[in-house]
C-alpha cells in the first residue's frame, strides 16, 4: 500500500525485536547518569514506532520522571491538548514522539469536549497549566458548519461562524494563559452528497470545509499561532482510510488509529521547529542517489540522469527536490566515495544535471568513511550534527552514519529510486513554520563554494562496526555458474582494477581449466544481505611465483578490509600450491588511480617502475603473517586440488 510510507513512518528504521526489552533495561538501570538517560530514550525513539510501542516508551518516560530522572539535555516543552474528540490516545504518543525530535514534552489534556469552557475560564486546567502551546484539536464535528446546499449566503455565514468560534478559543487561551495555539485544518469526510457536483455547489460540507480551511490558513498566517494541516495529512493517506466511522461511534476517535504515530509526529515537528530544531543541511550521496549508476565505472555516458529513462527521471526528481530545498534555505553538500575529479565531472559536463557545483556548499569526494566526512562538513559549515540529513541509497553507509553519528537524520530508502524524493519530503526533517528573507538568501551565501575540507582522523570506531556487519566472504575458483558474471566484471570494472585486462567469457573459461592458473571469485554477504560477487582474481604461475594477472573489486565494499581478506586468501592458496612469491602489477589508466598504492598498502615491496607509470610489486608468502580480520571466510569448490579443513561444505 502506498500509504504505508506515511502510516508506518517508513523513513525511520524499523523497530528492533528487542525494543520492549530495551525499554525495560533502561528503566532497570539505576546508575544511568542524568545526561545519558535523555539521549538513550531519544535513541529508542528514533525507530518507526507504532502506537503500542509509543505507549511503552511513554511509560518508561513517566516512570523515570517519577523516580526523579531528568531527560536533559532534551529541550523542555509544555503542551496542553484541547479537543472535541477523544484525545486520550494522543497524549502518550505525543510524549514519546517528542523525544524523537529532541523535546522533553510534558503533555496534559483537558476533559473531553470542553473546548470553549477551558479556553474562556481563566482558572481552567488549560489556562493554569503554564503551557508553551495548546493543541486545539478540533475536527469538523466540533464546529458549527451547517450544510445548506445551494444557499451561498447561509454557507458564508456558516463558515464565518465556525471561524468566529475558533477565534474565541484562540483569543481566550492567549488572553488567559499567553500560550500559543496549534490549530488544525479540517479533514473532510469522504462522503459526497451529489458527487462531483459537491465541489462547486455552495453550502455542501465539502464546500464549507474547503472555505473554512482557506480562511483559517490566511488568518493563522497573520497571527502568533501555528497551523497543523490535518487536511493535507488525511488526503495524503486517503480520506476513506483516515475517517473510521466505527471508531467515531465507539469512542469519538477523530481518525483511524493507524495514523496516530503520523499525526503526533507532525505535531512534534512543529514544536521542534518552534524551538529551532529543524534540520538545515542536506548531505547527498552521488552514485545511485543523485544519478543512476556508478560514475567511476560507468563513465559520463553510462550514468542515468534526466528525461527519457525511468531511472534517470527518478534521480532527476531527487535533484529537483534538493534544489527546491536549497531555494528555501537548506544548505546542500555532497559526500561520496569517489575520486574528487571523477565525482565532479557530471556536475561540470553532464547536460541533464540540474544540480551544479555552485549549489553545493561542501563537496567531499574521497574514500574515507562518510561519518568522518559529515563531521568535516559540519565543522566547515559551523552547524551542529543535529542540523544534518544524510541521503544515501546504500544501507551499509546509512547504518554506519546512524551508529556513529546518532544526531544525524538518515532516512531509510526503498529499493526503487522513484520513491527517494517522496521519502525525503515525507520525513519532515526540514519542517519550518516561517520563511524569512534570510532563508531565501542563505544558500546563496555559500555560492562560491563547493569546497572540499580536510578530514580529521576517523571519528568512528570502524573496527567494532565492521564486526557488527557479520560479514561472510565466500571464496570459490571460477566455475560455470559464475562465469558470465566474472566476464561481466572483467569487462566493466574500471576503478578498483589493478591491470584492467579485459577477457571474454571464452578466455575466462580457459583460465578456469588452465592448471597454471589460480582463479578466485569472491562473494560477500553481510547483515544487510548479499552483495553478490565483489572480487575476481587471476594468478598465473611461473616457477614458484604467482603473477597476479587480474585483481578487481567492487568499490561498494571498500573500507571493510575486504582487500586484506582477499590477499589472505591468495596467500592461503599460495601455500597450498607451494608458491613462494606473489608478483603484483599496477597498470595506470584514466580511472584506476584509486588503487595506485594498493600493493604498497598491502605490504608488497616495489620491484620496478616503468616509464608508462606501471609498477611491479613483490611479496614473500612465507614472511607474511596472518592477521585477524572482521569476517568469516567460506571456501567452496577447492576440494579436488587441495583438501582443506574449511572445505567441508563443498
Amino acid at each position: 500500500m502506498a500509504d504505508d510510507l506515511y502510516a508506518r513512518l517508513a523513513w525511520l528504521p524499523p523497530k528492533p525485536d528487542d525494543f520492549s526489552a530495551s525499554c525495560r533495561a533502561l528503566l532497570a538501570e539505576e546508575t544511568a547518569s542524568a545526561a545519558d538517560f535523555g539521549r538513550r530514550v531519544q535513541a529508542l525513539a528514533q525507530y518507526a514506532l507504532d502506537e503500542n510501542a509509543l505507549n511503552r516508551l511513554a511509560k518508561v518516560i513517566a516512570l523515570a520522571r517519577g523516580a526523579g530522572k531528568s531527560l536533559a539535555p532534551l529541550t523542555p516543552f509544555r503542551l496542553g491538548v484541547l479537543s472535541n474528540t477523544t484525545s486520550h490516545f494522543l497524549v502518550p504518543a505525543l510524549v514519546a514522539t517528542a523525544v524523537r525530535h529532541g523535546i522533553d514534552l510534558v503533555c496534559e489534556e483537558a476533559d473531553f469536549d470542553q473546548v470553549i469552557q477551558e479556553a474562556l475560564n481563566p482558572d481552567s486546567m488549560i489556562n493554569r497549566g503554564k503551557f508553551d502551546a495548546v493543541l486545539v484539536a478540533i475536527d469538523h464535528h466540533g464546529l458549527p458548519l451547517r450544510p445548506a446546499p445551494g444557499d451561498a449566503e447561509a454557507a458564508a455565514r456558516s463558515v464565518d461562524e465556525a471561524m468566529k468560534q475558533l477565534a474565541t478559543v484562540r483569543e481566550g487561551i492567549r488572553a488567559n494563559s499567553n500560550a500559543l495555539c496549534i490549530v488544525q485544518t479540517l479533514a473532510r469526510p469522504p462522503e459526497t452528497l451529489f458527487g462531483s457536483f459537491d465541489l462547486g455547489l455552495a453550502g455542501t460540507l465539502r464546500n464549507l470545509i474547503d472555505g473554512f480551511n482557506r480562511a483559517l490558513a490566511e488568518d493563522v498566517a497573520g497571527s502568533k499561532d501555528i497551523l497543523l494541516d490535518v487536511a493535507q495529512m488525511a488526503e495524503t493517506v486517503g480520506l476513506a482510510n483516515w475517517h473510521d466511522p466505527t471508531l467515531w461511534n465507539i469512542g469519538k476517535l477523530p481518525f483511524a488509529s493507524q495514523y496516530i504515530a503520523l499525526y503526533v509526529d507532525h505535531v512534534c515537528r512543529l514544536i521542534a521547529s518552534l524551538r529551532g530544531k529543524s534540520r538545515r543541511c542536506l548531505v547527498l550521496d552521488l552514485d545511485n542517489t543523485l544519478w543512476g549508476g556508478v560514475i567511476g565505472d560507468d563513465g559520463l555516458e553510462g550514468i542515468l540522469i534526466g528525461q527519457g529513462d525511468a531511472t534517470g527521471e527518478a534521480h532527476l526528481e531527487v535533484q529537483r527536490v534538493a534544489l527546491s530545498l536549497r531555494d528555501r534555505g537548506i544548505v546542500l553538500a555532497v559526500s561520496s566515495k569517489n575520486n574528487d575529479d571523477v565525482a565532479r565531472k557530471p556536475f561540470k559536463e553532464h547536460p541533464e544535471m540540474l544540480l551544479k557545483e555552485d549549489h553545493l556548499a561542501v563537496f567531499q569526494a574521497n574514500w574515507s568513511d562518510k561519518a568522518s566526512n559529515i563531521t568535516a562538513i559540519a565543522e566547515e559549515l559551523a552547524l551542529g550534527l543535529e542540523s544534518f540529513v544524510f541521503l544515501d541509497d546504500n544501507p551499509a553507509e546509512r547504518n554506519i552514519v546512524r551508529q556513529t553519528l546518532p544526531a544525524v537524520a538518515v532516512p531509510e530508502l526503498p529499493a526503487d529510486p522513484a520513491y527517494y524524493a517522496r521519502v525525503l519530503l515525507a520525513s519532515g526533517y526540514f519542517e519550518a513554520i516561517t520563511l524569512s528573507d534570510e532563508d531565501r538568501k542563505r544558500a546563496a551565501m555559500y555560492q562560491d563554494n563547493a569546497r572540499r575540507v580536510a578530514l580529521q582522523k576517523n571519528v568512528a570506531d570502524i573496527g567494532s562496526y565492521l564486526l557488527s556487519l557479520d560479514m561472510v566472504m565466500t571464496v570459490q575458483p571460477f566455475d560455470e555458474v559464475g562465469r558470465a558474471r566474472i566476464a561481466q566484471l572483467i569487462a566493466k570494472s574500471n576503478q578498483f582494477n589493478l591491470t584492467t585486462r579485459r577477457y571474454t567469457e571464452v578466455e575466462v573459461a580457459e583460465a578456469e581449466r588452465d592448471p597454471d592458473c589460480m582463479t578466485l571469485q569472491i562473494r560477500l554477504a553481510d547483515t544487510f544481505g548479499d552483495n553478490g560477487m565483489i572480487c575476481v582474481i587471476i594468478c598465473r604461475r611461473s616457477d614458484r611465483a604467482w603473477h597476479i594477472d587480474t585483481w578487481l573489486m567492487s568499490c561498494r565494499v571498500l573500507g571493510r578490509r575486504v582487500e586484506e581478506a582477499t590477499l589472505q586468501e591468495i596467500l592461503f592458496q599460495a601455500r597450498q600450491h607451494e608458491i613462494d612469491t606473489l608478483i603484483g602489477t599496477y597498470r595506470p589508466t584514466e580511472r584506476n588511480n584509486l588503487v595506485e598504492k594498493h600493493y604498497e598498502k598491502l605490504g608488497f615491496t616495489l620491484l620496478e617502475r616503468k616509464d608508462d607509470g606501471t609498477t611491479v610489486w613483490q611479496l614473500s608468502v612465507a614472511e607474511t603473517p596472518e592477521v585477524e580480520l572482521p569476517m568469516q571466510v567460506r571456501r567452496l569448490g577447492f576440494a579436488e586440488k587441495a583438501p582443506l579443513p574449511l572445505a567441508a561444505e563443498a
Partner: protein
Amino acid sequence: MQEGQIYERLNVIFGDVFDDDSLALKAETTADDVDGWDSLSHIRLVLSVEKAFSVKFSAAEVGKLKNVGELVGLIQSKI
C-alpha cells in the same frame, strides 16, 4: 485456528497493550482482572486484535463483550 492458538496470540497482544507480559488469559478473564483495562484501553485492545487477526468488529459487537471467552468466540466467528 485452534482456540489454544487464539489464546496464545491474545496473551501477546494483551501483553503489548497493557504492558504486562505475565498475563495468562482464561475464558473468564474480565476487565477487572487486568490492570489498566478501562473503556479507553479497551478500544486500543480491540484495534490491536483487529490488526493481528485481520478482522473487523462492529461497534455493537465490541460493546457486548463481557469477558475474554466472548472475545475468542467473536474472533472465531470471523476467521
